[in-house]
């Protein structure tokens, strides 16, 4: 079990940002990585929005498994392919104003030469009484073409490029390194 928890970098968006936030040149001095985010997307008609993860800039085939709870209904999806890079949720464009979702993304053994994985626990509460919300948990496997350490991680909303994938101003992301000894 990790016995240290070191903040590597953090960033708060001062402006809406379409193509996500990338942590690059991640140092190789830790055992695991953790990202915490308080975030909100802008995708219209969605109360919660997916978070897209890109590791080392790879557009190869990712695999994901996602479990959701929306109010009292559960659902699941997943698969493999270049589009299966979504893991976790934050608040969406039609969530209550100024509400941000929150979540944690864990990247174990990120220096390993074997398959890279990520795990997420996240959720978005849209109203003060909790009447509408969505939580999302799941796991993601990076493309097998990534054989070295994870050196960069990008987080963005669903779709990216356009307003639909934008993370809004005020979203805050923290990258932590954990050491096992």
């Amino acid at each position, binding site marked *: 079990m990790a016995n240290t928890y070191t903040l*590597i*970098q953090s*960033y708060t*968006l001062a*402006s*809406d*940002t*379409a*193509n*996500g*936030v*990338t*942590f*690059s*040149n*991640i*140092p190789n001095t830790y055992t695991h990585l953790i990202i915490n985010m308080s975030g909100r997307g802008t*995708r*219209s*008609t*969605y109360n919660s929005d997916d978070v897209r993860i890109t590791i080392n800039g790879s557009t190869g085939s990712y695999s994901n498994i996602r479990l959701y709870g929306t109010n009292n209904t559960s*659902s699941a*999806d997943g698969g493999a392919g270049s589009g299966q890079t979504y893991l976790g949720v934050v608040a969406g464009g039609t969530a209550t104003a100024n509400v941000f979702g929150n979540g944690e993304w864990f990247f174990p053994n990120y220096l390993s030469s074997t398959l890279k994985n990520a795990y997420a626990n996240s959720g978005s509460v849209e109203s003060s009484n909790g009447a509408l919300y969505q939580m999302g948990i799941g796991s993601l496997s990076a493309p097998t073409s990534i054989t070295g350490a994870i050196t960069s991680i990008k987080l963005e909303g*669903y*779709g990216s*490029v*356009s*307003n*639909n*994938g*934008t993370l809004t*101003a005020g979203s805050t992301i923290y*990258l932590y390194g954990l050491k096992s000894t």
Partner: protein
Amino acid sequence: MTKLKSVEINCTTGEVIETPYTEAELTDLSILETQWETEAQTRRDEKEAEETRIANLKVSAKTKLIAGEPLTAEEADLLVI
């Protein structure tokens, strides 16, 4: 409010690179927005259709079980884990 194209934080140097949109990219955004929204709606529709299909199968399976009628393979799959 200014909208950024991307943000990169260099974890080694601490440098933050905030890249704004060019005018040409801003012009293209409205087209891309429509494309992404269409894709998002398609994905949502597919998910809802699958949920409706499973719900209907459950109702059908329950009705047949009560009536003592044979289930289809698809209905039986719902009951066998």
